[in-house]
């Protein structure tokens, strides 16, 4: 799909990752590679560990075993402590955009300030340059005219598009989406999907957790089915959604296809 020559080099690598919450092992040895410019979707039943996996990638969850790499740099560093690790992880996270189910826009800041806060404070960008960059990102999600409006005045779909613009403003190497459209009214889903599709066309590397089967099938280069903390099956989306090998995948799809919840 991509025309770039470097698409066979890994951007995100997840190697044998284990994660426990107390006695409950939620990730049981996950392996996964997202190559540069590729889009991978993860589907699976509730509680299968999809969010935990995505959150582990940018270290919002601390994994117990294994390794996660971004563009060849190890994200989790059990050998590093305190401030040194904090500096390391802050740098890593500046290169990863994360989009949450509930948007998590900053309500005390206007739309444009939501988008420019990180470039200004973390990259030392001056106000004017940051505003230009911010407007560019807002245009990208079709919300330039909402620049000076506060998040509370936006619809859910608009909020999520601003959240995407906020993440894009840091020029991330990869975008992580955790059910970006599940909190939205059905009629607002498409505007967010449209933005995600346009990112796909720009060859943004993306790791997408979703309950939207048809969207996942459309947009991704590779698809994973997770259940019980393991990757049950992975293949091209066409195969996964029409002719999966595993019984568990088939059962899941039977329940969920046609009814996107």
């Amino acid at each position: 799909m991509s025309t770039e020559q470097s698409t066979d080099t890994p951007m995100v690598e997840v190697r044998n990752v284990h994660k426990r919450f107390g006695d409950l092992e939620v990730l049981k040895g996950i392996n996964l590679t997202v190559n540069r410019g590729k889009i991978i979707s993860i589907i699976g039943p509730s509680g299968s560990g999809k969010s935990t996996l995505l959150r582990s990638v940018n270290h919002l969850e601390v994994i117990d075993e294994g390794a996660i790499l971004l563009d060849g740099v190890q994200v989790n560093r059990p050998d590093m402590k305190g401030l040194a690790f904090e500096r390391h992880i802050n740098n890593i996270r500046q290169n990863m955009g994360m989009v949450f189910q509930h948007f998590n826009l900053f309500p005390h800041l206007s739309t444009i300030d939501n988008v420019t806060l990180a470039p200004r404070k973390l990259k030392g960008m001056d106000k004017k340059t940051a505003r230009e960059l911010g407007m560019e990102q807002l245009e990208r999600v079709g919300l330039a005219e909402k620049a000076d409006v506060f998040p509370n005045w936006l619809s859910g779909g608009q909020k999520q598009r601003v959240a995407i613009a906020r993440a894009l403003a840091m020029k991330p190497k990869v975008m992580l989406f955790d059910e970006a459209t599940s909190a939205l009214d059905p009629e607002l889903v498409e505007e967010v999907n449209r933005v995600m599709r346009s990112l796909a066309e720009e060859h943004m590397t993306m790791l997408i957790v979703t309950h939207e089967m048809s969207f996942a099938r459309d947009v991704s280069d590779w698809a994973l089915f997770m259940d019980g903390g393991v990757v049950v099956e992975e293949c091209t989306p066409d195969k996964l959604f029409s002719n999966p090998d595993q019984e568990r995948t088939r059962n899941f799809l039977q329940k969920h296809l046609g009814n996107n919840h």
Partner: protein
Amino acid sequence: MVFDFAPVITYFPTLLKGVGVGSLVAIAVALMSIIGGLVVAVISIYTKKVVSWPLRFFIWLFMTTPLLLQLYFLYFGLGEWILIPAIVVGILGLGFHYMAYNADIFIATIKSVSDGQYEASRSLGFGHWNTILYIIVPQAFIRSIPQLGNNMILMVKDTSVLSAIGVAELVYASQYAISVSFRPFEFFMVIALMYYVINILMELGQAWLERRTAYRR
């Protein structure tokens, strides 16, 4: 009973001076108690127990003892060792007292900012303390405005307690005038009216500020 407001008019400049002193104290106390309360709240939530527990004890101490006792303690108690001007003691005493109450508010509102806000900020690359500074505290502050306003309105009324240690605010300023004119009722009526006006003004200000920030919550 026949009212005679003539002495009140005669001594009105003295009363206004009292309002001036009271206002000065109130502004100093507001700044001290809001900034200090915020710092106390942040430290008591985000630092280790050895630091946060003494602070929580401080809050508890000031919230469970009477203001007048705290002022006497500072003025006469500490006065045994060092001589501090009454107005400074008054500002410190009221300041610490309301710092404790404001810290209590900030602790609740800081905790009410959702984890999602913290995570969103961290995911952009902000560090722990930068997240507190740029994301958590401003949101908590906006949420605190209604209760902070109430506290500050109570505080302004409490400046009258400082007359007990000789700070020349409104009530204290009236005492000499009353003692020579024998017209306490008239004076207290006018003073009550002055407090009432200040109160109304503050409530208007609070309502305005709340309106100005409601959509940012």
